[in-house]
């Protein structure tokens, strides 16, 4: 069948289940870690784990790993512009207190 060769890559069921298991374990880890007081590192750790989970979901459940470059660029662009929104807004909030007392 001519159409056959264009069909998308089929990922093995075991990969899906494996990813699922990792995601479940990471969910457990993130909950457990949250009970340990690590100061600023709590949020860093929580977001790192969330990002690992999100990456796994995007790459495998959403097949980005097997998708065209265009799709990958699209996803990266979205993250980039979200980052711009957050980072450039923060340039205001983080530096508002800098210039409060008179100069000279």
């Amino acid at each position: 069948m001519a159409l056959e060769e264009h069909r998308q890559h089929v990922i093995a069921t075991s990969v899906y289940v494996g990813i699922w298991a990792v995601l479940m374990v990471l969910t457990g880890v993130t909950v457990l870690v949250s009970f340990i007081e690590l100061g600023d590192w709590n949020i860093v750790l929580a977001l790192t784990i969330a990002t690992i989970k999100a990456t796994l979901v995007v790459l495998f459940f959403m097949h980005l790993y097997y998708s065209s470059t265009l799709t990958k660029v699209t996803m990266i662009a979205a993250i980039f512009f979200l980052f711009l929104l957050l980072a450039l807004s923060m340039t205001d909030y983080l530096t508002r207190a800098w210039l409060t007392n008179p100069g000279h």
Partner: protein
Amino acid sequence: MATSDIEIAEHALQHHFADMDQQKESSTFGMWLFLVTEIMFFGGLFCAYLIYRSTYYPAFVAGSQTMNIWLGATNTAVLICSSLSMALGVRCAQTSKTKMMVVLLLITIVFGFAFLGIKAVEYHEHWTNHQFPGPNFQFEGAEAAGVSPQNIQIYFSLYWAMTGLHALHMVIGIGLVTWIVIAGWRGAYSPDYYSPVENVGLYWHFVDLVWIYLFPLLYLISKKHGG
């Protein structure tokens, strides 16, 4: 199946596309672009969250400590399971296992309702505790925690807005999966034409993805008491 795979594909080819390849690529790319808009849509809320969290950190800690971590964690697990059944369902569509696909998608729907049910329990609890922004907002122990109830209200405003919008996406997702189940049952899809299944799958995983971030940001801010 009454119709062969090829017939399904020929029937599904819209007049303005040259071939199935072009149609499928367009449809998938369109879906990803739509997800980009969804990311930016939630992005506005994440921006507000980031700014207020850095401004009113103790209030956010106090607010997050009223969250039930176990319900939140369970819901995270429920969504991950639903994503698995969704992914396997799409795989069945790729491999012509229509019945199995329908079953897996039904399981996905069940997980979806489970998530909403648990969320409803949490919402109910917040509602009865007056943890809903507005004139009736109350937060017991704000003074003891040494934070202004007003700032905790901002935490709850963002909590309700973010999880509410997420829940709305879940409801829409359940509707879409139901549509796929019905169409799939009627034999609308084949390995050469399953873009709707795949796209609804992408949407579902995206909604899961948002929750993966909402959970640590809203529930796990800090366990330390007394701000």
